[in-house]
């Protein structure tokens, strides 16, 4: 809630009680005019259910917000895989620790990917702790780099080191999938 100075005799109205400060909703619920400018201030905290993260208002007009996420790692090296066999090309690790480290429960992946054959679907697979299933798959049929994003839960994971392994494969035997930017965030 937006912190206001209250004076003796102030009346708590519906607007001052409910329309300010801390708000939860989908992206469509948090933008102007759903929340009018008069009901928003710099520093207001929202929980964006579309982007699944807390956001803080930076510019009231147009409701420009900054997402409060923790960067867990990044790798901008360009890598490729040829063919249909999913092969690991990158990995990023972090420690889940309520005491001193990252203590969130959801991981966000951002990756630039492309293929050299628009007729097939290329896949960028995210695995966890060498596990037996894809936590998340980002796909592309684009011949130029496009940014793909997705997220998955780690709420059931124990505290300690968590490794993310990134595999790639393309739909045809001689097709090549490429990855350049890779960023990992958590909330």
């Amino acid at each position, binding site marked *: 809630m937006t912190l206001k100075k209250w004076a003796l005799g102030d009346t708590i109205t519906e607007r001052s009680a409910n329309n300010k400060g801390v708000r939860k909703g*989908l992206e469509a619920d948090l933008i102007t005019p759903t929340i009018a400018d008069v009901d928003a201030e710099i520093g207001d905290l929202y929980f964006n259910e579309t982007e699944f993260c807390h956001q803080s208002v930076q510019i009231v007009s147009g409701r420009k917000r900054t997402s409060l996420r923790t960067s867990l790692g990044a790798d901008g090296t360009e890598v490729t895989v040829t063919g249909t066999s999913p092969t690991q090309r990158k990995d990023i690790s972090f420690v889940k620790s309520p005491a001193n480290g990252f203590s969130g429960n959801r991981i966000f992946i951002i990756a630039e990917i492309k293929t050299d054959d628009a007729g097939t679907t290329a896949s960028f697979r995210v695995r966890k702790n060498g596990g037996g*299933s894809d936590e998340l798959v980002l796909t592309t049929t684009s011949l130029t780099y496009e940014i793909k994003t997705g997220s998955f839960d780690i709420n059931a994971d124990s505290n300690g080191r968590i490794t993310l392994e990134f595999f790639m494969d393309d739909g045809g035997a001689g097709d090549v999938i490429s990855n350049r930017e890779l960023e990992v965030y958590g909330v």
Partner: protein
Amino acid sequence: MEWKIITREIIDNKNNITIVETSQQIDEVGNIYQIHGGIIPKACQKCKEPFDSEVKAFPLTQKIPYYKCEDCEFENTGGEATLDHKIETSHNIKKSTKDRIVSLENKIVGNKANIEHTEDDIIIICDRCNGF
């Protein structure tokens, strides 16, 4: 395959319940499609079986020269040391090649998800149903 938008209930401060749509869709077998294109595969849309692939390490090998002395226990992969041995002992050397493991490469093997985008659908099927 039919995709349904995942909904949830919200209760306001007057206890009114409203159904709102989230940014994710789910199909009949539990696969999830996210608003920005991310897919969390759970099971094959055709045979309904959950995916059961695993990660295995495959060696990347390189052919290197291999020298084995036919008259004693000497063996080496270096030509210079082998030449020294031959000069010093006048033994006969047999030259061949052997594989050296350069590194290990992780690959996914088993029944993984294969994803294909069509104009109005996302097809998620396993390797077996895909004919691999």
